[in-house]
C-alpha cells in the first residue's frame, strides 16, 4: 500500500509541477485583464499548496509505517513530523499574506515561485533528514522575519545609491576575514564560525557587491569610475580565489561583467572580461589541485570512482537510476551522495521525484531569472536597474553552476541551489535577494503612478493649449 501511495504520488506531483511550470510561463506574458492575471496567480498558489500537501502525505505515511529517514518506526516521530508540516504550511501562508496585503505592488508570480522552491526544499529535507528539516524551518522563519521589511526599505530609503564605499569596505573586510580565518570545507575556505553558528559571508557579500557596483556605475561621468569599480571588484574576486572559492569567484566575476556591460554599453568590455575570466579559470585549473580533481571527476567520474569521482558518480547513479519518473519518495538512495542536502540536493530531487519534475524545477529557476531581468528592463532609475540586473545575474550564474555541476554538464564548483539547499546563509541571502527584487516591483508601481500622473498633467496641459489656441483664433 505504501508503495502504491508513493508511486501514485510521484505521478501526481510531476503533474502538479508541470502544470505550475506552464502557468509560471503564462504569467510572464501580458494578461488580457487584471482579473485574468489574478486568477492565474490564484491557480499557481493553489498548485504550490497542493504539491506541498501531496509530498507531505507521502512523508507522513512513510514516517508512520517505516520510520522515514530515521529507520525507526515510531508514532511520536510521525507526530513531530505532522507538527512540522503544519508549521511549514502556516509559514508559507504568512509569506503569501505579507506580499498580498502589505506589499500590494509586489509580484504575485515571484512570490509563488519563491514559495514553490521553498516547498520543494522543505519536502526534500524532510525526506532526507529530520534534524536538517527542523533546523532549516527555523532558519526560514528567521529569514521571513528578517526580510519582511526589506521591500519597504528598498522603496523608501533614497540614499542607498550613496553608500558605495560602505558596501566595498564591508565586502572586502568580510571576504578578507574568510580568506585569513575561514574554516576549510571540501578544499575551499567558505565559512566563519561564531560560536555555535557558522556563516558563509560570501553569500551576503555578493548582494552588497551588486549594490556597490550599481552605486559606482549608475551615473558614469568619467571612465575613472569604471576603473575604480574594476579594481575593487577585482579585489573581491582575488580574495575569493585566495580562499579557493572558485564558484564564488565566478559568480562575482560574471555579475561584474554584466553590470559594467549594461552601464557602459560596450560589448568589447564584456567579451574582453569574459576572455580574462576564461584565462583565469584555465590558470586556476593548472595551479589548484582541488580544481584539477574536479575536472578529472567531470571528464570521467567512473574512472576515478574511488576518489575524486565518487560524488559526481553517485549523483549520476541517482539521476540515472531514478530516470524520467523517479523512484518515488523513500524508494531511492539519495543518502549515498555526499553533501546531498546542500550542493547535490538536485540529484536527490531528480532521483526520487523524477527527471520530469527536476526539469520543470530548472524551468521555474529560469522563470525567476527572466522575471529579474524583466523588472530590470522596466525600471527607469539606473541605480535600481543595475541592482536588478546584478542580482539576476548572480542568481542565474549560481543556479547554472550548481545544476550544471550536479548533472556533470560542467565541473562541480560547490555552490548551493537557491532556496532548496540546506544551509542558513544560502537561504537567508536568497530570501534577501528576492525581497530586494520585490522592493523593485513596488518601486516600479510608484514609477507607474508618477507616469500616469504626468500623463494626466500632460494631457490637461495639452488640452489647455488647444483650447487657448482655438480661443486665440476665435478672437
Amino acid at each position, binding site marked *: *500500500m505504501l508503495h502504491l501511495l508513493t508511486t501514485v504520488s510521484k505521478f501526481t506531483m510531476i503533474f502538479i509541477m508541470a502544470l505550475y511550470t506552464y502557468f509560471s510561463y503564462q504569467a510572464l506574458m501580458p494578461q488580457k485583464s487584471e482579473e485574468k492575471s489574478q486568477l492565474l496567480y490564484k491557480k499557481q498558489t493553489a498548485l504550490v499548496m497542493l504539491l506541498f500537501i501531496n509530498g507531505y502525505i507521502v512523508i507522513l505515511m512513510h514516517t508512520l509505517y517505516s520510520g522515514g529517514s530515521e529507520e525507526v518506526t515510531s508514532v511520536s516521530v510521525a507526530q513531530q513530523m505532522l507538527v512540522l508540516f503544519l508549521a511549514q504550511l502556516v509559514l508559507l501562508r504568512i509569506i503569501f499574506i505579507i506580499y498580498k496585503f502589505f506589499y500590494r505592488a509586489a509580484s504575485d508570480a515571484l512570490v509563488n515561485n519563491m514559495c514553490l522552491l521553498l516547498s520543494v526544499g522543505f519536502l526534500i529535507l524532510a525526506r532526507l533528514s529530520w534534524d536538517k528539516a527542523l533546523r532549516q524551518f527555523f532558519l526560514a522563519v528567521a529569514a521571513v522575519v528578517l526580510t519582511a521589511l526589506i521591500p519597504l526599505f528598498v522603496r523608501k530609503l533614497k540614499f542607498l545609491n550613496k553608500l558605495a564605499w560602505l558596501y566595498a569596505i564591508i565586502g572586502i573586510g568580510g571576504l578578507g576575514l574568510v580568506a585569513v580565518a575561514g574554516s576549510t570545507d571540501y578544499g575551499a575556505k567558505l565559512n566563519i564560525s561564531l560560536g555555535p553558528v557558522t556563516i558563509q559571508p560570501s553569500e551576503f557579500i555578493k548582494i552588497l557587491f551588486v549594490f556597490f557596483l550599481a552605486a559606482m556605475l549608475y551615473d558614469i561621468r568619467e571612465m575613472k569610475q569604471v576603473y575604480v569599480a574594476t579594481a575593487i571588484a577585482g579585489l573581491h574576486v582575488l580574495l575569493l580565489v585566495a580562499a579557493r572559492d572558485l564558484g564564488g569567484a565566478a559568480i562575482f566575476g560574471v555579475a561584474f561583467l554584466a553590470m559594467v556591460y549594461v552601464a557602459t554599453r560596450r560589448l568589447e568590455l564584456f567579451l574582453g572580461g569574459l576572455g580574462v575570466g576564461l584565462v583565469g579559470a584555465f590558470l586556476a585549473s593548472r595551479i589548484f589541485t582541488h580544481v584539477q580533481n574536479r575536472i578529472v571527476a567531470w571528464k570521467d567520474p567512473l574512472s576515478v570512482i574511488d576518489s575524486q569521482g565518487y560524488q559526481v558518480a553517485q549523483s549520476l547513479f541517482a*539521476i540515472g537510476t531514478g*530516470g524520467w519518473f523517479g523512484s518515488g519518495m523513500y524508494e531511492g*538512495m539519495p543518502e549515498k551522495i555526499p553533501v546531498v542536502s546542500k550542493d547535490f540536493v538536485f540529484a536527490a530531487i531528480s532521483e526520487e521525484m523524477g527527471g520530469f519534475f527536476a526539469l520543470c524545477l*530548472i*524551468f521555474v529557476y529560469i522563470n525567476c*531569472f527572466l522575471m529579474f531581468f524583466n523588472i530590470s528592463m*522596466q525600471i527607469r532609475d539606473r541605480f535600481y536597474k543595475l541592482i536588478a540586473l546584478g542580482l539576476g545575474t548572480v542568481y542565474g550564474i549560481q543556479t547554472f553552476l550548481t545544476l550544471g555541476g550536479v548533472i556533470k*554538464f560542467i565541473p562541480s564548483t560547490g555552490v548551493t541551489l537557491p532556496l532548496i539547499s540546506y544551509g542558513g546563509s544560502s537561504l537567508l541571502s536568497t530570501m534577501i535577494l528576492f525581497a530586494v527584487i520585490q522592493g523593485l516591483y513596488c518601486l516600479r508601481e510608484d514609477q507607474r503612478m508618477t507616469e500616469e500622473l504626468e500623463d494626466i498633467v500632460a494631457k490637461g496641459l495639452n488640452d489647455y493649449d488647444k483650447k487657448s489656441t482655438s480661443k486665440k483664433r476665435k478672437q
Partner: protein
Amino acid sequence: MTMTRRVQAKKENSNTEFAVITYGFLGLFIAMCLYFAYFITFGAEDFINNPYNARVSQFSENVIRGDILSSDGEVLATTQVSSDGSESRVYPYGRVFAHAVGYNSNGKAGVELDGNFNMLRSHSFALTRLINDFTDTKDQGDSVVTTLDAGMQQAAYNAFGNYRGAVVAIEPSTGRILTLMSKPDFEPVSIASNWEALNSDSDSSVLLNRATQGLYPPGSTFKILTALEYLNEGGKKSDTFDCQGTYTENGFTIHCYGNTAHGQEDLTQAFAKSCNVAFSQAGLSLDLNKYHNLAENMLFNRDIPTKLSNVKKSSFDLKKGDDPVLVMQTAIGQGNTLVTPLHMAMIAAAIDNDGIVMEPYIIDKVVNDNGDLVRPNFGDTYGAIVSTEDAKKLRKLMRAVVTDGTGSALLSENYKAYGKTGSAEYTSDKNATHSWFVGFAKKEDREVAVAIIMEGAGSGSSHAVPVARAMFDNYFSE
C-alpha cells in the same frame, strides 16, 4: 498610450545589452536542459549498471529478478521463489554457461551484470502490477533474451574436454555472440559458498573470463595479418619459399612445427601448412611502420568495440628499428603480441563479412513475463578493418588451410569452412603449445565465425580444429 510609448523608448535604449545577457543565459540553460534530457534517456545506462551503484539491488525488494534465456528459448538462469518467499537463483545449464551468464552474488559478472537493471524492472501487465501493489506481492521482473545458441555452446563444451581456454562464436553479419565459453569454469549456484576457494586459487584464475580477458600469444593465427601485409607491400601469392624445417638469421633459429621441412612452396601453401620459415622470411621484408598500422587498424592496441563489459585490449608493439629476431618471431605470432579470443573471432568475422566489423553483443532483447518485447537491441556497425578485396584474398588463403592444409578436418559436404590454425609457444619449451583455431564457415545464408584456444593442448589441428568441427556440425545441422 503616452506611457507605453515612453517605456518602449526606454526599452530600446538598452535592449541590446539585455538581449545579449538574457540570450546568453538562456543558451546556457537550454544546453544544460538538453544535456540533462540526453543523459536520462541515453547516457544513464553506463551509470545505472555500474557495480558501485547500490540502487539497482534495492529494486529487488519489489521485483523478482527476471530470467536469462538463450536465443533458442532455453532457460539459462531463473529465480525460484519458495513458499516462505525466499528466493534462490538457479542455473539449469550449470557450468556450461558459467562465464557467459555470470553470477549474481559476491559481485556480478556476465549477463547477470550487463542485464542487471533490466531484470530488476517489471513490465508485467499493468493491472497485475496494481493488484500486486495492493496485495504486497512482488512483480515478476523482465527476462533478458541473449544471443547465445544453447546447442552450439553445449557442443563446444562437450568437445573442449578438460583443458583450460576459451571459445567464442559470432554471427559475422550482425555481431551476435552465439557461443562464449571459458574454462576452467565454476558451478554458478554455489559461487557464494565457494567464493573463498575460487578467489584464492590464483594459478587457474577460475573467475577470469578468458574469452574476453585472457591475453594469449596468437601463434600462427597471426599469419593472417602477416600474409595480408606481405601482399599489400607487393608480394604475390605465387612467390616461392624454400623451407628446410629451420631458418637461422642473426644467430636465431626459427623452427617449423615438429621441424617439418615443407620444401618448395608458394605463399598460399606456406599459409595452408603454417610454415614458420616462409613467414619469418616474409616478415623480414616488411615495412614495420605499415605492419604496425595494419595491426592497429585491425584493433590491436585499441579498445575493442563492444557492449560487453570488462574486455581487455590486445597489444602489438613491433615498430621500425626493432631487432630482426623480434621481427621474425612477431611475423609468426610469437614475440610480444597478445590477443583475446574475442578479438580473434572478430577478425575472422570481419574477413567473412567483407571486412566490416559488427560490434559483438550478447543481449538480444528484453521481454516481459508474457514474452512481449520491452526493449530490442541491435548490433552496431564499427566499420571496415580490412578492405573488401583484402577480405577476399584472405578468404582464399583461409580456404586453402581447409582444402590443403592444417584444417583439413573441417572439410564437409554440409558447409564450407575457412580458417587458420595456430600452435602458440608460451614458455621456452617448444613442445608445449596453446592450440588455436580461428575461422568461419557458411552454408547458404547462415554463417558463423569462431575463435578457439586450448591452453597447452598441443597443435591447432590436433585439438582446436576438432572443437570447431563439432561446433560447425551442430550449427549447420539445425
